[in-house]
């Protein structure tokens, strides 16, 4: 569905994930984060967000929590502090990429 974020129309799914990663801007990331209860995005948040977007744009797949823990430079314990509850999903939402799908 089309919603408005910072006066810009963007396509988001019912859970709030972006449908088109290219509609995202850094300012929108801060806006989505505050919608999700994260008041401020620190450098550590940005490290994860950047890794998520880069991986998605290169491979077409969002990284899992395990891959994030191994490759983003932020250990899993800290990922849960930065993005409470579900780091892989929450970081994907803030990074403006579609909802991660487990592959079965």
């Amino acid at each position, binding site marked *: 569905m089309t919603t408005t974020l910072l006066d810009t129309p963007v396509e988001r799914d019912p859970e709030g994930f972006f449908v088109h990663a290219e509609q995202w801007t850094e300012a929108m990331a801060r806006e989505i984060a505050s919608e999700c209860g994260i008041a401020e995005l620190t450098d550590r948040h940005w490290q994860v967000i950047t890794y998520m977007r880069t991986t998605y744009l290169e491979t077409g797949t969002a990284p899992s929590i395990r891959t994030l823990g191994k490759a983003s430079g932020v250990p899993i314990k800290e990922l849960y502090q930065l993005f409470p509850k579900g780091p892989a999903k929450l970081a994907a939402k803030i990074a403006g990429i579609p909802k991660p799908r487990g*592959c079965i």
Partner: protein
Amino acid sequence: MHARIVIIGGGTAGTLTANRLHRLYGDRARITVVDRDDRHVYQPGLLFVPFGLADPKRLVRSRRAQLRPGIHFRLGEVAHIETGEDRVHLDSGDALPYDVLVLATGASLLPDETEGLTGAGWEQRVFTFYTLDGSIALRDALDSFDGGRLVVNMIDLPVKCPVAPLEFCFLADWHFRRRGMRDRVQINYVTSLDGAFTKPTCNRELSGLLAAKGIEVTTEFNTGQVDGAAGRINSWDDRQVAFDLLVTIPLHGGSQLIARSPGLGDEIGFVAVDRATLQSGAAPNVFAIGDATNVPTSKAGSVAHFEGETLVANIQRFLRGRELEASFDGHTNCFIETGFHKALLIDFNYETEPVPGVFPEPHVGPLPLLRESRLNHLGKLAFEWIYWHLLLPGHAMPGISAQMQLAGKELDATTITRSTR
């Protein structure tokens, strides 16, 4: 031409690739399969061992004996691969030069990656049925289990045969009912996913079956630590699930060999390949097939079978200097045992999720899709014969094409997703 084709791994994918290539080239190619042992395990049988429904001895055969005469079988450990010089280096010091390399190195279980999993209680109250020894040990544990909390924990994807943990729950329910003790056993399926299965239509069907059988489901549980002494699994976000008997599906990764060969693998050691051609990004004469790859579909024997057609066609094209065909569509076909002599069948690919319908012949079947039936259970049993006599020798399945067919499926707009690339 005498192309030298080296295949690392004599499991499902490596064996069927070698046999298909040999049927194509005969003596016009030198085909070598390398493996560290000569024991080929029929892995779909492991699910049945803990319930006394399969004899472990019957699941193992010689790898060499599954290869057509004329294929070279080399026993040995691979040290590393040098894609720059087209050589596979063995621990013995020998090197195998190749024109085409096929990585069929499978997936490895990594129980040590989860804190505490192989600590206190391992193989006493904590088991996995993903190895032959593990499934036998679990059979003995189930025999002496007198009730309590049985927890089945799928720690995270990717895993081999992602429906197997659910099948284990269904068969456990049946097992304890037959023994007249179901009322003394709580079964809890604990998964990192947000449902029993990733794909919505199939998730609804399976969730209904789990509920009907009284199997509890705990979702979005990312196991961070296992405490075998206390009988608890702990998640990264500080939730706990208590168990008396834990059946765990350990984290999987690619072969250690891939990690030792720079440039071939992704973060968890699976070979990075193009998902439609199966060619490695590291070198144009390197391909991968089966569980070893990072393609976004199930790690299952049916996938290796369907990939085989694309792979062999592309090896032939590569050796002739032609453009590769992007023909693998992610096709997967799985029977899901639900106990009581019944099973479900699902058939899907990268874009189309499992839906109801009939298989393999549109409107005729005879196998129903995504519905429990006795016929599907018979299909699952027949698959063991098909595996040794049709799939490993690299034959096509009568009436079943490598590409998934839309005909015969009840589709609507929500069950086909846009390709992610």
